[in-house]
């Protein structure tokens, strides 16, 4: 464990990625406190204003403060990542572990379902579900994302489990009469901890991106603000054509930095956990 931490702190990719992500986490937590305006949708000044001392990132066509919207949007993005990504990881783990460990018809059935869902694009499923929900909050959106994003995780976890279950310590546990559930929980899972952690990071980023896409095409939360909604409004009200870069570009830049940093962190972690990938 200490050795892991040593390599973790020495790894440049992990350090850079983690600091960017942490920066935005703090911005999401404390941003709404330092911004001058409390309500992201409130009219606070004339519209079309470029960034200034009064409005750090300018104002929208409707005179809303872009910075205030952005920090609230970051908050909801992290919420979606945590809930949606967490749920997707959890479902993927459960299905992957059982399919891989039990084998036989359980495996066949679970993998058939997984393969079917794997082919159907997540966004298409999200659209057909979200379009018929009259009221959607950010939490509901995250749950829908979680329930549709798990298939690739299930498949990856299953193949890892397949290779672990024939190891001797698992056989020993089986001979000692432990229940399948306990073997999965105490023998197999601890050996995949690093892998699970990395899967979660990828799902976290994936959920954030999925939410942005969903919000953008008009299936986002019906109340409140999110980064996808900001971009939808910016495009709908011709912010690009009018040259309002402060409204059109920063929201996507934030998402790009967060998700890119998450992926970067993931590679760093891979090198920490997997000595063969470390650079000499």
């Amino acid at each position, binding site marked *: 464990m200490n050795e892991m931490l040593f390599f973790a702190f020495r790894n440049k990719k992990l350090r850079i990625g983690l600091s960017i992500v942490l920066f935005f986490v703090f911005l999401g937590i404390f941003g709404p406190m330092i911004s001058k305006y409390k309500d992201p949708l409130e009219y606070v000044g004339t519209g079309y204003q470029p960034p200034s001392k009064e409005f750090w990132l300018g104002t929208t066509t409707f005179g809303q403060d872009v910075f205030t919207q952005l920090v609230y949007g970051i908050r909801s993005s992290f919420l979606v990542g945590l809930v949606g990504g967490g749920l997707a990881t959890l479902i993927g783990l459960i299905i992957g572990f059982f399919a891989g460990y039990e084998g036989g018809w359980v495996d066949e059935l679970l993998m058939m379902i997984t393969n079917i869902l794997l082919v*159907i694009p997540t966004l298409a499923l999200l*659209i057909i579900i979200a379009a018929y929900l009259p009221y959607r909050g950010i939490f509901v959106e995250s749950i829908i994302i979680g329930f549709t994003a798990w298939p690739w995780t299930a498949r990856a976890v299953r193949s890892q489990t397949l290779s672990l279950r024939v190891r001797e310590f698992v056989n020993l546990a089986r001979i000692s009469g432990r229940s399948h559930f306990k073997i999965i929980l105490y023998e197999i899972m601890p050996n995949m901890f690093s892998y699970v952690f990395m899967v979660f990071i990828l799902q976290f980023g994936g959920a954030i*991106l999925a939410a942005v896409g969903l919000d953008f095409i008009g299936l986002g939360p019906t109340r409140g603000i999110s980064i996808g909604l900001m971009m939808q409004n910016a495009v709908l009200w011709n912010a690009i054509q009018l*040259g309002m870069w402060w409204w059109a570009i920063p929201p996507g830049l934030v998402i790009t930095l967060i998700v890119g940093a998450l992926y970067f962190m993931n590679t760093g972690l891979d090198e920490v956990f997997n000595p*063969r990938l470390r650079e000499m």
Partner: protein
Amino acid sequence: MKKYLRMKILVYILTFIFAVTIDWLIPRLMPGNPILVLVSRFSGLPESAKVIYSYLTKAFGLDEPMWKQYFNFWIAFFKGDLGISIYLYPKPVLDVLKSALPFSLGLLLPSIILSWIVGNNLGAAAARRKKLDSVMLPIMYFITGAPYLWLGILLAYYFGVVFRIFPIAGAYSFSLKPHLSWLFISDYLKHWILPFLSLFIVQLGGWAIGMRNMVIYELESNYSRYLETLGVKQKLIRKYAFRNAILPQVTGLALQLGTIIAGQVTTEVVFSYPGIGYVLTQAILNQDYFLIQGCFIFIIIGVLVANFTVDLVYMLLDPRIRYSYGGEI
């Protein structure tokens, strides 16, 4: 080989049945009554409201038992009857989608194929080459983290508004009608280049990273080490590594299709490009449920066809599958 194909086709048929069932089921499961919502939109026009209502009750057959409704849905589906668009009333959904499809494919196919080829070569070139790798890798990670629509906005802002090089809305100028002439083709290409680039660039990042990691993995493996000790030239070893590393990338292509299509939808919206994605967004904004469901079916069919193509390509590339089939693919 036959077993491999049979398994795949079985999964695809089941997927298709599942998708159509979802398409039928969700409107019936969800709270609120979409039909009443639809009819209420025509409340100002009692004549059309009546027509719509009778059409809807007939289409959904709501007075019939559930199993019969499901059965009728399939029959209508095979007759090509996807309902009538409310937002573009009285155009049938199928016609709306048919005219949008070429524009979507014209963006999707070139961007997928080109980014896959370029990305793989870039990634293979960067693997275990320190200088190139340390410059390229961070860039690629942020590119692949970018939402497609944001890259679209960025390109539209710089090339359309600041430098004014390319138009940023539509698939061709309003003054032109689609026909075969140099004028139209050059106009089409001018409108095409920015949405194409935003799809191309985001996909590029993912392929380059994947290929880099795969090639490093192959270069670490025993056969590469053995060739090295024999004194074989680096170039040849890399060639072998590339060939082995390309297979997972082909599988990756099938897995990525969903994300790419999602990106396509949002990119089309940014550029008001009249493809399936743009139609879908209009349908959502106008609560045109038939059109939404039609788009869903079209996307599913497209993904299934693409997946099947990828499987065939994989079979062509991997001799192990051609000769036999066993174990996990």
